[in-house]
């Protein structure tokens, strides 16, 4: 009886989805050929239908979707001399000015970018290629595309 119900369910689904008639009969033939060979032991397996792996891929896709939509872009921020780092969502800032203001408040220090100064900390970032660059040279949108993490460097080292 269970086999019959499953067969019926698949048949209705197939009929609804298939448009040409010849393949419809082919579908029915396939169904009738495969199901009698199913043994009770295989029928009782836990991983059928294989939703577990697909659900995992779907959830992974949702995370990618969230990243793709640019709704959040969390990056690590380190300050030289401070052992504990922070994490920051760059998408909440409108540009370099608000980023610097927030970082200066977060780390309680004066931070600049774009120019080298002997008295202030300088903000640098690691890009996709693994190179450390000075923050502020490129447009903000381009910066969001390439930044991997941030580092606040001491004045005398860079």
């Amino acid at each position, binding site marked *: 009886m269970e086999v019959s119900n499953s067969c019926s369910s698949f048949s209705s689904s197939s009929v609804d989805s298939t448009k040409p008639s010849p393949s419809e009969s*082919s579908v029915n033939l396939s169904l009738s050929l495969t199901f009698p060979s199913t043994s009770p032991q295989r029928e009782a397996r836990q991983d059928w239908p*294989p939703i577990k792996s697909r659900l995992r*891929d779907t959830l992974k896709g949702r995370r990618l979707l969230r990243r793709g939509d640019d709704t959040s872009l969390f990056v690590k921020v380190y300050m030289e001399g401070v052992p504990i780092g922070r994490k920051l969502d760059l998408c909440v800032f409108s540009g370099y000015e608000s980023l610097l203001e927030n970082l200066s408040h977060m780390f309680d220090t004066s931070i600049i970018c774009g120019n080298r100064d002997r008295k202030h900390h300088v903000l640098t970032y690691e890009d996709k290629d693994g190179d450390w*660059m000075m923050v502020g040279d490129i*447009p903000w949108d*381009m910066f969001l595309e390439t930044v991997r993490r941030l580092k606040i460097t001491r004045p005398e080292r*860079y």
Partner: protein
Amino acid sequence: MYCSDPPHPLHLVASDKQQKDHKLILSWKKPTMDSDPLGVFPNSPKYHPYYSQTTEFGGVIDLGLSLRTIQHEIYHSSGQRYCSNEGYRRKWGYVKVTMDGLVVGRKVCVLDHGSYSTLAHQLEDMFGMQSVSGLRLFQMESEFCLVYRDEEGLWRNAGDVPWNEFIESVERLRITRRNDAVLPF
């Protein structure tokens, strides 16, 4: 990045069939019991024989999971993102500049300049304080010289070719000391 990750076999199937619809539709080929033309799905015992044979036909079953469309969209959006990333350098004209001995590099837009002299001025502002007498690029008495990596990956001396040819082929800049330039890279 996630773009470099190999795509899931299901995405490969969708990509091969070039389906524009978000919802995958059942499509059947001539059934062949032995062959696996796509070679996408592994012969895993966890799959039910019915399901395995169906995939061998090249069709995809829609099990009714509403999240599949999102998964399908992700593949295209990530592809688009990858393409847009490639075009960034050509679109903006920004190239990296590094100076020997310095850890942190800079970026300059070569399209903002019309000649080597204005580029030298900007590099002077960026890196000039590293030397007492400044960079003085393209000058005879300077201890520094500017080299660039072209589209073929070769390092060349900046200033040898006309400016218009330079901005078309430059991919990276490097400020090096003049005596170091003699050494092969």
